[in-house]
């Protein structure tokens, strides 16, 4: 078993750990750090449930190895919830019933937030295309698009 020492920042805290080389980022976050808000779905990059941020950009947590995150800044749904960054989005999701079981929601919120931050959530079609990499098996997507669109309009497309 090959292990490697890594150090990185997770949700603002310095983390130093020894990890197996083959451990994915999402498994590291969930199993080693107890951050279970990032979910594990397909484990090959299709469903988007494991979406987290590395150095400010969303990535698939199942397609990045923890060892590749040496010296990076990782943010999870726990971190961005605590800072209040996505409060408007969370509120819109609640009001519009844009979630049922909630399994996909952390990944959906982080993806939607990146779109809103980029200022390019121009219309439903753009939102749909940006969100196309995140599966939801409950809502039928309409309510999710409604919620993201509502926040985009509220802030003139800026969060």
């Amino acid at each position, binding site marked *: 078993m*090959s292990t490697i020492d890594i150090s990185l920042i997770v949700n603002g805290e310095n983390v130093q750990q020894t990890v197996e080389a*083959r*451990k*994915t980022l999402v498994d590291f976050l969930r199993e080693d750090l107890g951050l279970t808000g990032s979910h594990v779905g397909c*484990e*090959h990059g299709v469903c988007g449930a494991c979406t987290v941020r590395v150095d400010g950009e969303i*990535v698939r947590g199942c397609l990045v*190895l923890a060892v590749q995150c*040496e010296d990076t800044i990782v943010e999870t749904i726990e971190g961005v919830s605590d800072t209040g960054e996505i409060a408007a989005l969370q509120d819109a999701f609640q009001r519009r019933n844009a979630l049922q079981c909630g399994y996909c929601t952390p990944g959906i919120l982080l993806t939607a937030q990146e779109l809103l931050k980029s200022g390019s959530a121009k219309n439903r079609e753009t939102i749909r295309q940006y969100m196309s*990499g995140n599966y939801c098996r409950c809502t039928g997507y309409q309510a999710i698009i409604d919620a993201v669109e509502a926040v985009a309009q509220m802030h003139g497309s800026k969060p």
Partner: protein
Amino acid sequence: MKPRNFDYVRPKSLPEALAVLQRHGPDAKIIAGGQSLVPILNMRLASPSILVDIGALHELRGISVENGMLRIGALTRHAQAEHSPEIRRHAPLFAKAIPYIAHPAIRNRGTIGGSIALADPAAELPACLLALDGEVEIANIKGTHTVKAGDFFKDLYETALNPGDVLIAIRLPQAPKARVGFAELARRHGDYAMAGLAACQEDGKVRLAFFGVASTPIRAKHAEAAISKSIEQAVSALDRDLDPPDDLHSSGAVKKHLAKTLLRRIAGDLQ
């Protein structure tokens, strides 16, 4: 945790990476963005004994124009390329194709070099490289050499890269007067194409590179020759150029039908 056990190294320089790769030969796999390799590892379709992470090799970054060629460093991420003014200006075909590659979270990580080196037959960029008659820069312990796109893609996931080689950049000829077209059909936006077409016309010479319809990206040379006569003659000529195999999502006959539809859709963009 799904992959088999492996060792991991992250060399700091290209010579160091080449030495490690030389030492481990075919047991080593190169990882860059990992967006195709990690699923392959997770599904245990590959079980290398060591991963060589080339992510820290600054020599492999950067986009520049040199000697009439646009040079794109292998570690350029899809998202960087998508927003690069140089690529929009000098390689508009790439700019058109990149938004079709997977999803934003994957484009944030996946690299241009990785996509070309893997040579997935249904991927966008290998076909674009072929349509633009680009070339690939390869380094190994002996030095660097260049391979034309037409000689690079050999067979299913098989390229001119050998164990010990690192793809360091791609080069695309500058063609300010070229007209380009791109289209693909997939079940869901961002999924691998059931069929796709990257095309370029320059001084009346047309290159049509189809993807998702053969074991490699493939030039449709009969259709290229016929397109100056009429679009429908070019469409018919595809019967001689393409013989797509069935796959999980569609039969070969459907793929050929889709290829013809794509050619009709973009033929106008090439004039």
